[in-house]
């Protein structure tokens, strides 16, 4: 009852000073809006990094041969030949958390078609590879397990390769190309994927059965990598552990030995990149918070002036029976109302500018509920914090002095 009355009094005071109230709110409005917009931009860029990494194969796990010491000399990982086909088979058989897996050997060379040639990479894989990398075909079809077994000279090529070795627009499917002078029959064209996050052209690639690449191009019988995909993104970290265990058994490593291989999930990559963008977000939010703080000081300033200006009114209220606590509450409610209304308007402006940024500046944004809740809570607390001092001052006035104040 009493609180409701005080609420009415405070509300009336705000309505009577519309312009001033609005100007006071402006600080809070801009503060809240910028916190929300900054967080939205930060979240947005984080998410876009996540999606673009996911596009490279959402649950992908990469297993590479690790460095080892031979005769006291540390060796480069790429020269290691410790990853073998039997490792791959062990992983495929024993793992429970992987949905697909593929051996992988890679090399570079020249793709030649008649008078056109183009330097590219060749990846030797099995038919699961497309599912792991989440790549579709534009045309043609993937090679089969039988073609892998027989080390057939068939290949799929990416768009960049198509553009460079088939410049006159003929359909490459069914055509013959040569890779390092080994003839391959093109049986499919990969869907265009563009550049990945690291600026690498994902379409500049030739894919062939790993057996073919091993025997005919590289003349090796070990694997460069094993790629696999976990059942789900959540399974990825456990799948990494599982695969490590299998490989340790496979390589007969004792407990004291270090891993002679590396198992990485995309998740790790994502978190590395996310933390960079998180730093940036934090910086932006820190700047935005300062404007929220300045908004709070604005409220204190106006409330302070308001108390001075209404000294006589305060005296009158006290004379007719207003207690110190009533006066305190009146001004505190006023400050809180201003900051909460400002906060609400700020949320609206923040959401609006986020939409604007997304639509017209083409920046990825993502508004999170917590940014709204936090900035709103902060501005309510700001109202209480900065409203308290002037309100306390008002309530401590001596009624006689206040009544005589001119």
């Amino acid at each position, binding site marked *: 009852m*009493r609180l409701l009355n005080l609420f009415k009094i405070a509300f009336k005071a705000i309505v009577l000073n519309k312009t001033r109230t609005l100007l006071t709110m402006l600080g809070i409005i801009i503060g809240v809006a910028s916190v929300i917009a900054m967080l939205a931009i930060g979240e947005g860029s984080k998410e876009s990094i996540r999606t673009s990494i996911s596009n490279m194969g959402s649950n992908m796990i990469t297993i590479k041969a690790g460095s080892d010491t031979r005769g006291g000399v540390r060796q480069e990982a790429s020269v290691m030949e410790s990853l073998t086909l039997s490792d791959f088979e062990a992983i495929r058989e024993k793992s429970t958390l992987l949905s697909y897996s593929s051996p992988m050997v890679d090399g570079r060379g020249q793709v030649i078609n008649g008078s056109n040639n183009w330097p590219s990479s060749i990846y030797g894989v099995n038919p699961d590879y497309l599912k792991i990398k989440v790549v579709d075909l534009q045309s043609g079809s993937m090679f089969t397990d039988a073609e892998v077994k027989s080390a057939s000279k068939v290949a799929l090529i990416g768009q960049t390769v198509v553009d460079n070795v088939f410049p006159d627009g003929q359909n490459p499917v069914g055509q013959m190309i040569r890779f390092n002078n080994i003839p391959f029959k093109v049986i499919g064209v990969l869907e265009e994927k563009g550049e990945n996050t690291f600026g690498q052209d994902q379409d500049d690639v030739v894919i062939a059965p790993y057996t073919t690449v091993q025997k005919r191009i590289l003349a090796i019988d070990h694997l460069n990598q094993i790629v696999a995909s976990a059942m789900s993104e959540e399974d990825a970290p456990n799948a990494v552990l599982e695969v490590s265990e299998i490989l340790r058994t496979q390589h007969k490593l004792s407990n004291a030995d270090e891993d002679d291989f590396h198992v990485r999930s995309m998740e790790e990559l994502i978190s590395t990149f996310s933390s960079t963008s998180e730093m940036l977000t934090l910086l932006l939010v820190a700047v935005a918070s300062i404007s929220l703080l300045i908004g709070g000081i604005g409220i204190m300033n106006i409330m302070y002036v308001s108390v001075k200006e209404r000294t006589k009114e305060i005296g*009158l209220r*006290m004379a007719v029976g207003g207690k110190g606590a*009533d006066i305190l509450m009146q001004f505190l409610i006023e400050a809180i109302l201003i900051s909460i209304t400002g906060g609400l308007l700020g949320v609206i402006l923040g959401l609006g500018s986020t939409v604007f940024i997304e639509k017209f500046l083409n920046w990825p944004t993502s508004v999170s509920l917590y940014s709204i809740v936090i900035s709103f809570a902060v501005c309510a607390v700001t109202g209480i914090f900065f409203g308290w001092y002037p309100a306390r001052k008002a309530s401590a006035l001596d009624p006689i002095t206040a009544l005589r104040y001119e």
Partner: protein
Amino acid sequence: MPKEIIKIENLKRSFTMGTETVHALRGISFDIKEGEFVTIMGSSGSGKSTMLNILGCLDQPSSGNYEIDGVSIKDLSRNELATIRNEKIGFIFQSYNLLARTSAIENVELPLLYNSKVSTEERRERAIKALEKVGLGERLHHTPSQLSGGQQQRVAIARSLVNNPVMILADEATGNLDTRTSYEIMSLFQELNKQGITITFVTHEPDIATFSSRTIVLKDGNIIEDYQNTNVQSAANELAKLPKQDD
């Protein structure tokens, strides 16, 4: 025998100004009974304002006793004093002290806002009644800037009546008004007094005192005169005697 509203015994009030002690009131005793219309007179520096502050429970005596409606205000806290002011005293000020840009009715409702025993409906009802009593039943929603000085003081009088106080305390209530308007206001006070409302009027204008039933004159912190007015003038009659205005 009418009830005693105010009981003051050997009341003293002194202030410390730097190293000096100023004795504003030096031992004052008097009573005010229910239904009296008392003017407290005195020139500036006589202790009049100090007396008013203490009567209005805005200030407390240094020594001596002050009772209002049977309650001794000695040793009451700030909050308890506020409650006494809210329930027992109606204030009227020289400069009206109305809330700007606020309608007459909301101004009158103000004291009741601080009394949680009064409901919203009752508050509105009592405010309308009080405004009708002072002849402003037609101007409930006018703001102070839309009202003349006399009308503003009427709103203030309505505000002082709304909490059914045991005493109305007026501080130079006609000080800002011209002769005609101040007679009008005095005639309103006389009317209210006839209805049984106790009024204490602090003023320095001698002709105002002629409308009251009793006058207390202060000088240098002491009462030098306290007399019943045998020949109370009617403000309504005085008003009629004034030359007619053209407009």
